[in-house]
């Protein structure tokens, strides 16, 4: 723990990154739940306070207000993390709970030599952070570095843990509110501790156990971590908190340049297959899967054509993507003579191996069923569109046309027919829009004369919207077809709604 060196980069203006830049004299506030969580210097100067009601802030400063965009903030922090990864692999985001200040923490002790000393490294990091105002804090512990970032002490390059502890001693107790709950901070204040220095003096005189007794083990551990106090263990290294290593986001990108421009889709088959095989190998090695790949075709003038291929279930093999790409290419002509081709796969996810039950009978078709269906569904959807493939399911309702709903191929269907419907006669084909039947001279006809066989079954309901009352019959047409007709008791007209076929 002695050797570690943490650099905290606190970004007090982080809530502003999502919004357009305004001149300094313009007051700007960022809101969350109608409360000000960030105010710029101009707004603070006009008397706006953090936590103030939005109306009051507007009255005071005539400020421009924005709603906080947490997602954009997170994206920005992730972007910075990826950038700072060039300096150290030990970098992580710190999102603060109470204060909307968030930022990054870097462990830099192991890269000092590479970048020519602390001062040089900090200079380089400052250049990288030029876009956003940053408060720097340096300490031998993570929490210490963060607390000292409020202190803004200049980095000289020859600090040692004793200096950090001396600086930490001046930090007021109230700053701990970011880690500890309010009651605990209040309790500390009431006990007479005003700065962290008071606590460290207490530890020096009476050892950590007095703090543990008074404020609990949790708090004592926190203080130990904060000051980096070595405890009396046999092997201290075993009890150190391991430093997290940053894992850059993985994506797949491959490109291929052709010797001569390609004009026919068939000539693209082999290159497409090769590139997708590369993707498949990449995914397998990293135990990843993806649901979407993107193709970009270029001609020699840098015109590009975009093609994106989706499938319903994450894949870690290339075959389905190949088939789906071919289906898409089949339905369209190449827009130009293709000179280069790019394959990108941005959103990768962990490959979840399908659970397979131990089956000694040798019948594996059930396990493969899900993926085969995905394959088939993907191919059909690529050709026919999203709505073209579906299942039908029973839905509880009084109105017949509402008892049947379309579901996607992977949704389990409801097949529990209530008792009351089990013996009622229902057709196997339904017209989504009932077709009008003619009733003239006491004869009912619909593309042929109808003769009523059984009925009526009265169905009433839906009174809260458009009341429906119908008498349903089975009718036989002169050619033998059995249809489901009803008389609308509200309008008095006849309709054919279904056909009995079994």
């Amino acid at each position: 723990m002695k050797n570690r060196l943490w650099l905290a980069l606190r970004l007090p203006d982080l809530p502003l990154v999502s919004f357009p830049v305004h001149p300094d004299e313009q007051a700007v506030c960022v809101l969350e739940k109608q409360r000000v969580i960030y105010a710029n210097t101009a707004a603070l100067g006009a008397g706006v306070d953090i936590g103030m009601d939005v109306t009051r802030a507007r009255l005071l400063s005539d400020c421009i207000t924005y709603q906080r965009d947490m997602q954009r903030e997170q994206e920005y922090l992730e972007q910075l993390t990826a950038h700072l990864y060039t300096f150290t692999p030990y970098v992580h985001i710190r999102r603060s709970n109470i204060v909307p200040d968030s930022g990054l923490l870097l462990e830099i002790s192991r890269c000092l030599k590479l970048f020519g000393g602390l001062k040089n490294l900090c200079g380089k990091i400052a250049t990288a952070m030029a876009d956003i105002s940053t408060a720097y804090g340096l300490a031998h512990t993570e929490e210490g570095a963060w607390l000292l970032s409020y202190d803004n002490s200049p980095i000289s390059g020859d600090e040692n843990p004793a200096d950090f502890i001396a600086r930490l001693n001046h930090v007021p107790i109230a700053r701990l509110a970011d880690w500890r709950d309010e009651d605990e901070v209040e309790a500390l204040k009431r006990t007479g501790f005003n700065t962290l220095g008071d606590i460290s003096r207490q530890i020096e005189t009476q050892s950590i156990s007095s703090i543990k007794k008074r404020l609990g083990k949790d708090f004592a551990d926190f203080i130990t971590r904060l000051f980096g106090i070595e405890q009396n263990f046999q092997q201290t290294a075993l009890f150190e908190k391991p430093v997290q290593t940053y894992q850059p986001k993985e994506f797949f990108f491959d490109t291929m340049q052709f010797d001569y421009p390609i004009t026919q889709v068939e000539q693209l088959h082999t290159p497409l297959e090769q590139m997708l095989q590369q993707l498949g190998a990449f995914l397998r090695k990293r135990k990843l899967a993806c649901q979407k790949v993107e193709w970009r075709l270029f001609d020699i003038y840098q015109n590009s054509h975009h093609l994106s291929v989706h499938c319903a279930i994450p894949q870690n093999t290339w075959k389905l993507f190949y088939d789906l790409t071919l289906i898409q290419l089949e339905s369209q002509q190449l827009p130009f003579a293709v000179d280069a081709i790019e394959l990108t796969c941005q959103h990768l996810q962990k490959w979840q191996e399908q659970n397979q039950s131990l089956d000694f009978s040798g019948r594996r078709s059930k396990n493969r069923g899900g993926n085969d269906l995905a394959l088939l569904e993907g191919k059909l959807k690529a050709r026919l569109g999203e709505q073209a493939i579906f299942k039908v399911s029973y839905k509880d309702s009084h109105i017949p046309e509402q008892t049947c709903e379309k579901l996607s191929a992977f949704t389990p269907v409801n097949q529990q027919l209530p008792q009351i419907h089990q013996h009622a006669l229902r057709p196997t084909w339904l017209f989504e829009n009932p077709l009008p039947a003619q009733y003239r001279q006491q004869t009912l006809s619909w593309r042929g004369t109808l003769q009523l066989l059984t009925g009526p079954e009265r169905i009433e309901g839906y009174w809260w919207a458009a009341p429906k009352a119908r008498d349903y019959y089975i009718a036989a047409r002169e050619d033998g077809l059995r249809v489901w007709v009803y008389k609308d008791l509200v309008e008095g007209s006849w309709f054919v709604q279904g056909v009995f076929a079994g």
Partner: protein
Amino acid sequence: MNPDKPNPNKLITLEQLLQRGDIWRGQSQGFAPQAALDSGHAELNECLLHKGWPLASLVEICQPAALNGTNMVSQGEWLLLAPALRQLKEGYTVLLNPPALPFAPGLIQAGIDLDRLLVVAAEKKADFLASFTELARADICTALMAWQPKHNLSYTELRKCQLACSEGKGLYLLFRPLSVRQQSSPATLRLRAQLHLRSLEIQVFKQKGSLNSANTSIHLALPETWLPIAAHANLGQEQSPPSTHSTNNVSSIKRAKRKVP
């Protein structure tokens, strides 16, 4: 070239031709598909070779168009096929380009497992053909019921379907209007289905491996609820047909009157 002396390299003997499995040789059953699925109708099984629906081959069912002017054909398909479909315990039954929306309550009553029933809408002929071949080749599709799109399928297109079916293992049915009955078709089995007032008539007019089935026609019984009762029919003629009163006396279903509370 002398027509009497054909090029020996290109000589194909009759024997070689007869080796091919897809040449229909009248009554010879050697080349007719062997696997069959019990149709569930004893009389129909009697008419069919191997006592059931032939698997891995195209079965064509011609029906009189039920809706004039549209392609809608529906003549008791579920009545004819539900017993066979109920026997399939795995895989999916796919409806390709069905004439109307399959109605869930009716299908549940017919004993069809909706979890294994997929509907695929493909109205254009090119889409229909591509989907048909794709589905017929897919292992998970154990039964395919396809309704011919508005434009009639040509012999070559039907042949493509038949070839795709021969690569699969399931039951493949193609419903076509009765008007195409006179056209030649590569289907293994061709039937005509026609509903009558009291029965569903099935006529087998082509079956590979059997010559004398052309005139056999059988009548399958309709469910009781579909049958007109004589007295009721008479009543209907005497009085106005859509009268609630006249039908009430003979109603075989309970009058289910429900109100939403």
